[in-house]
């Protein structure tokens, strides 16, 4: 179960972030949580991650804005988008921006983990 996968999980819901990161940690993944897009970008500037999971709808910087900035500052960094809403336009925009996947909440954690692993060529 040992893995050096590093995941940054970004969502404005603190309760969700804490639960998901803890569950990912339990599965041997290094998971860091952020509560806003800005915080995530600051964290990314300081540390390196293999994959970022982004909520599309957040106050301040939205998920899609963050993806655009990541594309500029950290090209090649994998992104998975997560949303409570299922808008085809958003999904399309996300995929066009290079997001690996677009998932609708609530997601099964093991399914999410499988996608994260495959996005970096693991599993």
């Amino acid at each position: 179960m040992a893995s050096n996968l590093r995941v940054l999980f970004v969502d404005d819901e603190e309760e969700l972030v804490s639960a998901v990161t803890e569950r990912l940690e339990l599965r041997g993944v290094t998971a860091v949580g952020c509560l806003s897009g800005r915080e995530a970008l600051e964290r990314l500037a300081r540390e390196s991650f293999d994959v970022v999971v982004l909520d599309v709808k957040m106050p301040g910087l939205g998920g899609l804005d963050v993806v655009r900035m990541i594309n500029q500052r950290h090209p090649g960094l994998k992104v998975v988008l997560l949303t409570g809403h299922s808008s085809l336009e958003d999904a399309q925009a996300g995929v066009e921006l290079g997001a690996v996947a677009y998932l609708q909440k609530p997601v099964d954690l093991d399914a999410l983990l499988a996608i994260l692993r495959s996005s970096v060529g693991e599993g």
Partner: protein
Amino acid sequence: MGRSVGAGAEDLEPQISSGAARRLRRSVVLATATVAILPLLVTTTLNYTQYRAAIRAEAEQPIARITLNTKRSLELFLAERRSALMFIVNDRSFEELCSPAALARTIANMNRSLTVAAFVDLGIVDGTGEQLCYSGPYKLEGKNYRDQDWFAEVARRGTYTSDVFLGYRNVPHFVIASRHERADGGFYVLRATIDAELLSELVMPASLGSEDDVFLVNRQGVLQSPSRRYGPVLTSIPLPLPPYSAGVDVREMRDNRGETLFVGAAFIENSPFVLLFLKPAGEAMGRWLTLRNELIAFTVASAVLILAVILWGSGQFVKSLSEASRRRAALMHHIEYSNKLASLGRLAAGVAHEINNPLAIINEKAGLAKDLVSLEAEFPRREKFLDLIDSILRSVERCKTITHRLLGFARHMDVQNEPIDLGTLLKEVMGFLGKEAEYRNLTVNFDLSDTLPTIESDRGQLQQVFLNILNNAFAAVRDGGRIDIVAEPFGPDQVAVSIADDGVGIPPENLPRIFEPFFTTKQGTGTGLGLSITYGIVKKLGGDIQVESEVGRGTRFTVILPTRKRG
């Protein structure tokens, strides 16, 4: 059964009712017909009276001319004879005149000197009416004329022309007489007679139309010369005489045979005679009758043509107006319906989105709890806890299904193309009605072909189509009824989805109308738009929809869809 208009639209009814359409058409026809036909009638009436007056004047003119000419020659004839008698009675003494030989000579001289030999005989009558001497072809010596009208008149007036009578000789004749005063205060009268036959020669013009008639009457309307129309001398004519005038009077009259005549009348001066010239109006106005018939025929034909065009045009006008208003009403209802759906969709999406976030938290918290319980080596009542957590996760899963379905339904308000697995879509739609099916104990049977291809179409619109048809099927079946849903390939590039129920069915007379907007059999509850919208969507998606039904046996709707959107 029958038509009803969408519920809630009573206030703002944009459709033209059939009564309003009839009233509109009547007004259009009346207004147009009035402005088109009234001037035509006015023009025709003016033409009619003008033509008639002109032609009538033309017909009357020769009548007046002939009548006047004849009047003048007749007056001249009578005046000549009166003058001759007056000259003789005053020029000669009683003794010179009163012998048959002298009278015979006088007649001969007068007849020679006058233009027309007219006098038949000559006699002298004394103041008591006794004929003293006589020369002529009749044996009239010694006759007494005291009781004859002419004698009384000449005694009073001096000179007199009588009307025609038979007298002692029993031959129609008239008298011209002149009185001579004696020195002793008495008088005698020189009396000449003229055959009535001469009058007819005098009034007859050189040429007379075959239907024309010219004759003399006295003031009582008794013929003084024979008439073609009314018979021989001394017969009464059935025409009233016009009032006296010095000139010629031409007027239209109707005689006892019902024939309309132009009558020229002239009173002959110093005589009881009235000259009448008759011309049948039919002959005189023959040209007018032809013209009049042409005028009437033209007017009637024009009016009929105008009316036909107006009736046809107004029908077309009102029809297209009703059609336009019906379409507008349908469109407005469609828009209203779509807006309603869109609002509902937005609301559903908002709710679903808001619920999804806390749902995700519950999901992760429960997942974490499960992780922790699983990983803990020694956890009291582990199984019980895992059961509880799984139950929570299953409930989350159920909520998720609901919110995803809501989002999926709401998302597809716009036309989009995406690959669709019809089987899944049909089951999703059925999912909305699952509870009702369960409560009403309905059997819903799916028969999905294995070779059913994925089609390219609009998910939301298709959901609406099948939801509408299934709603109708649910409304048609009794509790415990059955609905069969069959999806199979149809030809090389189409699929067919049929939804059959065993419900009440649709009467044949309603079958052709069920896709019309506002047609509903759900009195009071239906808008009559469901199937119309369904039809519109299917057509928009490039498909077709068919319906078969039998009353009491059920109804089958078949939706045929292209596997790929055309165009």
